[in-house]
């Protein structure tokens, strides 16, 4: 295999370069750095800050996994991927995991041979229109011009929605979200559609947010989550349970502030198992006992990551909604650590 690298790279543009054997964990540990695929820049989810350091909700998942596996939350090589390149990058082994607002769908999971390791954000597609149109429901949009970001599940949902309601529309496919917003503000389209979290975020940045309304219809389920390649279940388990550790930490009240104190041992056995003072969960994953402690310490528990990057106090200003813990009426739920 080694010898073929040069020729293979010539033949298939680096298809072979990182032929990832089954043991992604060994590769990552040998390399000392984890390659994590992220977006090319979505505020709140993944974007480099003024110092060039990647920040965001998806980035935090990468950092937590790196902290668990390598003991260093900064040992991550962020690989910006576009909607087009993300799956090839993961399948070819260029990246070890993908945390990029990617909707968990059947065909991506089964046909493209990926493994979604959980959901870190429950989203749904919605519509935004100028309030002056007087539209109150998406069913009234017959004949409207709709701006969509191309290459996403949104355009499929859009086609399905209009077809099932037996109304027509004129799609205006746009490469990036910011361009679509410009066209929408210029009146080149009547409707802008994307995930409701993004609609809310972008509306907040409009010059006059009150002139625009987000219609009540949610036309799709968009569970967004990190994914890895099929066939390396050990690595998949690590990513899955790192995400679950962040979620469980919030449920159990483990925060980045009190984690040192709690990791000394508490009278709650699940916290003890999570933080490694009891049981051998880390060993079962092929890691050490404190893997989850490091993952949580990297950026805080799920709630802290949410509030710090996209929560109500940030510019994005998203409410927890569906993404509240199950104990608070949301969908965020982790299987037990035992």
């Amino acid at each position, binding site marked *: 295999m080694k010898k073929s690298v040069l*020729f*293979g790279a010539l033949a298939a543009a680096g298809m072979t370069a990182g*032929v990832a054997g089954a043991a992604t964990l060994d590769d990552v540990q040998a390399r000392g750095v984890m390659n994590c695929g992220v977006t090319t820049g979505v505020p709140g989810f993944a974007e480099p800050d003024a110092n060039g350091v990647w920040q965001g909700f998806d980035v935090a998942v990468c950092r937590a996994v790196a902290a668990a596996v390598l003991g260093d939350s900064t040992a991550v090589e962020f690989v910006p991927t576009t909607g*087009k390149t993300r799956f090839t990058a993961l399948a070819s082994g260029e990246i070890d995991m993908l945390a990029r607002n990617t909707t968990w769908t059947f065909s991506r999971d089964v046909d493209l041979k990926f493994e979604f390791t959980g959901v870190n954000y429950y989203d749904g597609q919605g519509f935004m229109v100028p309030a002056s149109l007087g539209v109150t429901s998406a069913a009234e949009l017959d004949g409207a011009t709709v701006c969509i970001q191309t290459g996403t599940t949104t355009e499929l949902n859009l086609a399905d929605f209009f077809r099932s309601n037996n109304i027509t529309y*004129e799609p*205006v496919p746009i490469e990036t979200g910011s361009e679509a917003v410009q066209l929408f503000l*210029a009146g080149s*389209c009547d409707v802008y559609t994307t995930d409701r979290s993004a609609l809310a975020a972008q509306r907040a940045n409009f010059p006059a947010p009150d002139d625009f309304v987000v219609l009540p219809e949610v036309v799709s389920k968009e569970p967004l989550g990190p994914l890895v390649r099929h*066939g390396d279940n050990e690595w998949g388990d690590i990513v899955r349970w790192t995400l679950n550790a962040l979620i469980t930490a919030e449920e159990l009240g483990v925060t980045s502030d009190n984690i040192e104190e709690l990791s000394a041992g508490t009278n709650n056995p699940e916290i003890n198992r999570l933080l490694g003072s009891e049981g051998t969960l880390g060993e079962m994953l092929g890691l050490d006992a404190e893997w989850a402690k490091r993952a949580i310490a990297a950026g805080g528990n799920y709630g802290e990551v949410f509030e710090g990057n996209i929560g109500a106090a940030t510019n994005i200003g998203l409410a927890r909604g569906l993404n509240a813990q199950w104990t608070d009426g949301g969908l965020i739920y982790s299987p037990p650590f035992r």
Partner: protein
Amino acid sequence: MSTMTDPQPQGFRLGMLISDTRYRSYTFQFIALILLIVSIAYLISNLFANLAANGLDISWAFLGEPAGYDINQRPIEYTSQSTHARASMVGAINTLIVAFLACVSATVLGVIAGVLRLSNNWIVSKLMSAYVEAFRNVPVLIWILIIFLAMSNAFPQPRAFRGETPDATMLFDAVAFTNRGVYVPSFVNGAGSAIFWLVLLASIIGVFAYRRYAKNLLFKTGKLLPTGWPSLAILIVPSLLMYFVLGQPVTLEYPELKGFNFQGGVHMRLSLIALWFALAIYTGAFIAENVRAGILAISKGQTEAAAALGMRPGRIMNLVILPQALRVIIPPLISQYLNITKNSSLAIAVGYMDITGTLGGITLNQTGRAIESILLLMLFYLIISLSISAIMNVYNNSVKLKER
């Protein structure tokens, strides 16, 4: 006196493959060929082995599955339930539409600009220099975006046409310029319209036949027939007569504001117009330079000789200079046509659904079949480019200097 005899022809020995200069070059070429084939076969098998190792099997089954997405500009029947192959076909036709429009306009623009740049009129020639330098030195992607954004911000929204005292009105009550595109009236074919179109087609052929006849007459007898008004008459009169005889079979459908948008007529989308204009003016600047080079390549003596025969400057250009200049102009013109076709893949910047947008964009994304889609895309552009080259080479052979 000595006699020279040819050495006795010897039987072929294996060693001669190396020692004999007659065979040696073949031997080495054969060995090189074998090595080349082996290494290519190795690369391909390696590619497939590694694709399989990564779980990326090559499969074309996705082309037969429903695409699931909508396309705004549909030259052929297409719904979101059509297959990916159908979506690719729509994209391919859209690519050809914009490439054809841009090639024609770029040629017209380029020839005019190239000729005028050599004008003796200082202002005209400087204006054309400014056009050429401004447009060919800025990337075409920037021009596409500039035109698109300028139009989407400058033109009124369809809503502005509404009401008793609208902010915007339609040109001649027929053409609406909106920031979603230009709506122009379309033809509605009634009963007997086929006859009308056939007559029109026949008239066009008639015009060409008449001009050829006039040219032959000029060459044979030196008699100069007028071509301007008879051509116009041949073109218009029979069609006009037929139009009224058949009871006005072809009518115009005017665009009308209904609901959110104009309905009826032909909708030329902003993305098509922006891409078309940008490709035309950008490549037109290059063609202008080719034309100028072609004209300058013709010896000044030709112009002077024609002038000495008493020809007017316009005739000199059309009858003496340009036909000779074409020999120099055509070969680089072919590359410009290829450039237009390939540059049309920038369509995605303004959301024009060409084949890069459908097959190489949405289909690739929704199915994840990147390698297959890109291979098909390469094949498409290769075939189109080679076809354009082939057609233009045939034309080039017909105008090039005939050596006898």
